[in-house]
C-alpha cells in the first residue's frame, strides 16, 4: 500500500513542475506589455518604465524569471495582483469557498438524482422509465450549459420571479464571512431570512452546474448496474428468493459503485475548476469568474497563479481519487 501511495506521489512532482512552468510560460508569450497596462491611460516616463520593469524582474532572462517565480511558489509567494495589489494567494483563498460551496451543491444534486435514475433505468431495462431517463440524460449531456442557464433565468427569474439572477445573497443582509461558506455563515448569523436568501441564490447555479455531471453519473450507473446484474451471484440471490428490491439495492448497487465513484471523483475536479461559465453568468464571486475577469483585465500574476493553483487542485483531487480507488479495489493496487 505504501509503495502504491509513494509511486503515485512521485509522479505528482514532475507534473507539478510542468504545470508551474506552463502557466508561467503562457504569460510571458502573451501579447501586450503588463507594465503599460498597469500605467493605464496616463502613460509614464521612460525612467519610470525601466524602474518598474526592474522592480517586477521583467528585464531578467526568461529562465532566471522562472527560477525566481518557482522558488517563490515553494515559499507560498505567488506575486500580487496588478489590479487590486493584493497577494494572489490571499485572493484565491477568499474566493475559493464560494466555488467550493457551489461545486459541492452541484455534486450533491447530481448524485442524489443521477444515482437513483441510473438504478431505476437499469432495473427496468428497455422499458418506459429506462428510455425516458436515458434520453433525458443524453439531452442533458449535450446541453450547452451557458444557454441552459439563460433559459432558467428567463423562466424562473424573469417570468416567475422566484429566484434572483446574480450574486450569493441579497445586499440587505450583512455579516462578516467567518468561513466564506454563505449557507453556513447565513445560518449562523441569526438574521431572519438570510439563510433563505442564500439558498435562493444558490438554486439556479446548482442546477446549471450539476446538469452535466448528473447525466454522466446516470449513464455510468446504468451501465455498471447492467453489468453487475448479469453476474452469477445475482442469479443466486434471486434463486434464494430474496426480494428484488434488496438484490438491487444491496447486492447489485454496491458492486456497481466502483466505476461510479471514479466518475464522481473526476467530476469533482472539473466542477471545482470548471465552474467558469456558471460563475460568469450568475456573477458568482468564485475562482472561475475571478480567472475570466483577470484574463480580460490582463492581470498577469493572477492568471498565472490562478491557472497553476487550479491545476494543482485538480491534480490533488485526481490523486486522492486514485488512491481511494486503490483502497477500495485491491485489484488496481496490485496491477500498478
Amino acid at each position, binding site marked *: 500500500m505504501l509503495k502504491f501511495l509513494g509511486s503515485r506521489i512521485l509522479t505528482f512532482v514532475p507534473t507539478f513542475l510542468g504545470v508551474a512552468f506552463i502557466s508561467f510560460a503562457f504569460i510571458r508569450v502573451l501579447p501586450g506589455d503588463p507594465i503599460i497596462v498597469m500605467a493605464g491611460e496616463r502613460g509614464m516616463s521612460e525612467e519610470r518604465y525601466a524602474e518598474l520593469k526592474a522592480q517586477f524582474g521583467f528585464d531578467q532572462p526568461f529562465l532566471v524569471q522562472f527560477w525566481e517565480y518557482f522558488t517563490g511558489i515553494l515559499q507560498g509567494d505567488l506575486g500580487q495582483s496588478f489590479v487590486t495589489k493584493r497577494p494572489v494567494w490571499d485572493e484565491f483563498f477568499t474566493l475559493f469557498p464560494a466555488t467550493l460551496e457551489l461545486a459541492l451543491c452541484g455534486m450533491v444534486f447530481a448524485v442524489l438524482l443521477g444515482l437513483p435514475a441510473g438504478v431505476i433505468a437499469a432495473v427496468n431495462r428497455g422499458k418506459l422509465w429506462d428510455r425516458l431517463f436515458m434520453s433525458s440524460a443524453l439531452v442533458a449531456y449535450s446541453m450547452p450549459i451557458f444557454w441552459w442557464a*439563460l433559459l432558467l433565468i428567463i423562466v424562473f427569474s424573469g417570468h416567475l420571479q422566484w429566484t434572483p439572477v446574480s450574486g450569493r445573497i441579497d445586499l440587505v443582509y450583512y455579516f462578516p464571512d467567518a468561513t466564506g461558506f454563505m449557507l453556513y455563515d447565513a445560518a449562523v448569523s441569526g438574521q431572519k431570512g438570510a439563510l433563505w436568501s442564500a439558498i435562493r441564490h444558490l438554486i439556479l447555479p446548482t442546477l446549471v452546474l450539476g446538469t452535466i455531471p448528473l447525466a454522466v453519473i446516470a449513464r455510468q450507473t446504468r451501465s455498471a448496474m447492467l453489468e453487475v446484474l448479469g453476474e452469477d451471484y445475482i442469479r443466486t440471490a434471486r434463486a434464494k428468493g430474496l426480494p428484488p428490491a434488496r438484490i438491487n439495492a444491496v447486492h447489485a448497487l454496491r458492486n456497481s459503485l466502483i466505476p461510479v465513484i471514479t466518475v464522481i471523483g473526476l467530476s469533482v475536479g472539473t466542477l471545482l475548476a470548471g465552474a467558469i461559465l456558471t460563475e460568469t453568468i450568475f456573477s458568482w464571486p468564485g475562482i472561475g469568474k475571478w480567472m*475570466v475577469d483577470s*484574463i480580460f483585465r490582463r492581470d498577469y500574476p493572477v492568471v498565472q497563479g490562478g491557472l497553476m493553483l487550479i491545476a494543482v487542485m485538480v491534480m490533488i483531487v485526481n490523486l486522492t481519487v486514485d488512491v481511494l480507488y486503490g483502497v477500495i479495489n485491491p485489484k488496481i493496487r496490485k496491477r500498478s
Partner: protein
Amino acid sequence: MLSRLIMGARYSFFVGIIVVTVAATGGIIVGLIAGFAPRWLDTLIMRVMDIILAFPSLLLALVLVAVLGPSLVNAMIAIAIVLQPHYVRLTRASVLSERQKDYVTSARVAGAGLGRLMFVTVLPNCLAPIIVQAALSFSTAILDAAALGFLGMGAQPPTPEWGTMLAEAREFILRAWWVVTFPGVAILVTVLAINLMGDGLRDALDPKLKRS
C-alpha cells in the same frame, strides 16, 4: 435570425471538422511515437500530456485564446490543443496492446521498417476506439467553441456563430426570449445528433464497450 442560424451551422461544422482532424492527426502521430519509442521518450510524452490534462480544458483554451488573440481560428487552435492528449492516450494504449501480438512480430520478421510497422501494420487495428472518440469530441469541439464565443473569446460579432449570437442576445433575455432560445436550440440539436451518432458508432465498432 433564421438565416443567421443557418449560416451559423457552417461555422459550427467547420470548427468541428477542422478541430477533430487536427487534434486526431496530431494525437495519433504522437501516440504512435509514444507507443513505439524507447521508455524515456514514452514517459516524457505521457508526462507532458498529463500536464495538459491537469488544466481544466475550457480554462486552458480560454488562456490560450487570450495569448493568441480572440478569433474563431485561434479558438479552434486552442480547442485542438486541449483535445489532443485524449487521442494520444487512446492511441498509445491500443498500440501497446497490439504490439504484443503475433502478426506484428511476423511483419517485423518479414522485414517491415518502423514506419511501415507503425502506420500500415498497427494503426489500422487501433482505429476503432479512435473513430468513436473522434465522433464524441466533434460535439465537445462545437460546445467549447460556442462557449468561447459566448465568453467573447471565440468568433467576434457580427459573425453569426451560435455562441457569439447568444452572447449578443444576453442583454435582451427578459424582453425577447426567442433571440436567446433559438441559437441554443441549434447548438443542442447539433450536439445531440452527433452524440447519438457517436453512441451508435461505438456500438457498431467496439462491441467490447457496447452498453447493453
